[in-house]
């Protein structure tokens, strides 16, 4: 396939995956490709990355698509004609490393090894950090254990799982550590042991990636790049839905959250200062008049410091929306400097104040953990009861709401057909500066089944759909 066609297919796929690629960037990439030969794969990848991907959070998506599109190009990545020479050499090396076994029967190919032998060799390779051997073993084990059949409509994760299970990779780390302990003459100190462990985990991780890459190559060879890219298409971290995030996606969400909070805090601080002019700053004006020969041609103004809002967060942390509540709390506390005061409450059918958890530690993760484990939020049966929670809140803390307070209500408003007690929200609205409701459910699900977000929403200053980080970010920016 000529490079041009390949590139345009690649760029279409990048756009499909949600990466913004403009026309000029496309042209730049074409320019770059002229300078760097496609054979030098790493450099080629970085060249495309530098011209097409302008945000680090998109890099992973880019990398995956790149692997799919270019995996079958370049000699060393072609699986149809495996570089037999190197394989052979590898094999000889393996024979040497396998002392005592002395089985002459193994006829010069890797296929004759038993699974146990492969596992033993893998352990050896991991122990010594032998990269070439790890790669060869990754190939071999995929071929052997994944059980891939052409045309079978199964995702890559299934094959990955099968391969890794056969190699017993979960216990590999313990085994390696044990072997290491046996090998060392003296007792290892805790620090040394910790370092060894990290070293081994990183090697195992590397091996896993090799296996994944091998599976992907085989799948592409079987199904073609376009089809493969489609199955691998994943939402970008900022588009992952809170309510349906897998564990991996949760991790990437958490990673995306930190830089986001920094950005948000900087932007809010700037916004507060920006565009507002106060009284004339006499000193500053005179200073700048020097440039105009003493004529105050460029008047300078003092910036007023508007009061920061006070925030009360009331979050439903029952199963389905827990992740959303967690993220919102993390986000709010990460930028708490932008508010004069933040208080937070969590509920399921009972309600509990958790402000102190966040006060006692600087580590937000730890505070969230305490919220999950220690907060007293169950009253009767541990099914969401917004009505009761709101009622108790009003009784205990209603007085604390002032005209400076902004109240945030988080939840899907699925009340399990309990009494709504929406008068509480109405009362809150009367006292507070603003009341907002954030709902992690798609808008089309609102007010279906036992969701009564409309009933509460009538008394708020706005109900917002907050399904992903992007929407949440947009809302918080508006808030402060």
């Amino acid at each position, binding site marked *: 396939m000529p490079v041009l066609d390949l590139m345009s297919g690649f760029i279409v796929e990048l756009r499909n995956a949600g990466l913004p690629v*403009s026309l000029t960037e496309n042209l730049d990439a074409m320019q770059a490709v002229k300078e760097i030969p496609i054979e030098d794969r790493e450099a080629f990848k970085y*060249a495309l*990355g530098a011209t097409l991907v302008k945000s*680090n959070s998109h890099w992973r998506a880019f990398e995956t698509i790149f692997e799919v599109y270019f995996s079958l190009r370049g000699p060393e990545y072609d699986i149809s004609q495996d570089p037999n020479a190197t394989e052979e050499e590898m094999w000889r090396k393996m024979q040497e490393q396998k002392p005592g076994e002395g089985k002459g029967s193994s006829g010069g190919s890797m296929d004759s090894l038993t699974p146990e032998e492969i596992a033993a060799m893998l352990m050896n390779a991991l122990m010594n950090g032998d990269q070439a051997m790890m790669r060869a073993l990754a190939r071999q084990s995929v071929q052997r254990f994944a059980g891939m059949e052409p045309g079978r409509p199964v995702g890559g994760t299934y094959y990955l799982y099968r391969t890794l299970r056969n190699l017993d990779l979960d216990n590999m780390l313990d085994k390696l550590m044990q072997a290491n302990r046996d090998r060392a003459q003296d007792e290892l*100190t*805790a*620090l040394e042991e910790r370092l060894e462990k990290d070293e081994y985990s990183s090697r195992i991780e590397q091996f896993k990636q090799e296996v994944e890459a091998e599976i992907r190559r085989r799948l592409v060879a079987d199904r073609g790049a376009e089809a493969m890219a489609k199955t691998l298409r994943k939402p970008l971290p900022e588009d992952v839905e809170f309510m349906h995030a897998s564990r991996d996606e949760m991790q990437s969400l958490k990673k995306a959250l930190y830089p986001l909070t920094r950005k948000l805090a*900087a932007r809010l601080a700037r916004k507060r200062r920006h565009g507002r002019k106060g009284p004339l700053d006499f000193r500053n004006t005179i200073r700048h008049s020097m440039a105009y020969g003493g004529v105050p041609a460029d008047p300078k103004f003092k910036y007023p410091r508007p009061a920061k809002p006070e925030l009360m967060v009331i979050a439903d942390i029952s199963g389905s929306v827990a992740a959303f509540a967690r993220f919102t709390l993390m986000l709010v506390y990460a930028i708490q400097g932008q508010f004069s005061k933040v208080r937070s409450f969590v509920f399921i059918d009972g309600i509990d104040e958790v402000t102190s958890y966040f006060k006692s530690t*600087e580590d937000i993760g730890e505070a969230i953990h305490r919220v999950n484990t220690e907060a007293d939020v169950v009253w009767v049966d541990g099914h969401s009861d917004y009505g009761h929670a709101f009622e108790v809140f009003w009784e205990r803390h209603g007085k604390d709401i002032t005209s400076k307070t902004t109240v945030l209500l988080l939840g899907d408003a699925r009340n399990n057909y309990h009494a709504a007690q929406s008068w509480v929200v109405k009362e809150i609205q009367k006292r507070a500066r603003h009341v907002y409701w954030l709902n992690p459910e798609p808008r089309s699900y609102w007010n279906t089944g036992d969701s009564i977000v409309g009933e509460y929403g009538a008394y708020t200053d706005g109900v917002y759909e907050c399904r992903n980080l992007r929407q949440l970010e947009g809302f918080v920016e508006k808030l402060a």
Partner: protein
Amino acid sequence: METRFESVQVVRDGLKKVHYLADEGIAGVVFLAQRLGKPVLVEGPAGTGKTQLAKSVAELLGARLIRLQCYEGLDESKALYEWNYKKQLLRIQADKNSDSWSDVHEDIFSEEFLLTRPLLEAISSEEPVVLLIDEVDRVEVETEALLLEVLSEYQVSIPELGTITAKQIPMVFLTSNNTRELSEALKRRCLYLHVDYPDLEREKEIVLTKVPDISQNLADQIARIVRSIRQLDLKKSPSVSETLDWARTLMLLGIEHIDAQDAKETLHVLLKYQTDIAKAAKELSVEK
């Protein structure tokens, strides 16, 4: 520019000669930047050598480094050019009656009365320069627009004088600590390079080149401990410059082999938050 890089490998070796250890990605982007004549936007955590990259490239090319430090409130009179008002005033007052108005007008808006600021200086320079626009994320979005003309056309328009076009295309590096999203317009004009913490091998190499007389063994241990610390969930992970500070500290203390006690006592060089230090100390001397 006189020296033109032959290949990515040449860039990499060249940077190594000036004590900057580039990985494949960094060298590749620097190479491309020169070939395509495009600015490079370098992003990444603080202390990973973004600014150093520009300095090293300048050293490698034997070019002059012109640096524009960005900050909030930066305006064109500090980034591009400014008229030298005092001199202009003097010129007008010097011979009040001899010149006609048009002569004076012609005269005071000539290059003699122009104060060049970093961007204009980089453009108008005769010899090769490397332009470093540091921490571009600190300026307001509106101010970014100042940079656009320079970055894409390599020219500066001055209403009174006309357009000054670059005599040679300078290499431009913009660095950003990612405190805000840069505008699309700016990003589109640049090549993007994300510099992350180096991997184990590279970090060890960096320690070996930057800290004289350090032993292989100690450098290896330092790199490994730093990697372990970076894996923890910290407020601020140790940067490369902090790794180097730590290595120097250990050298000064005459420590050849780090044990848990030494590590604990010197952690404050590596980490700057009390909570981080406590966490790392707890993790590193973990009882098995």
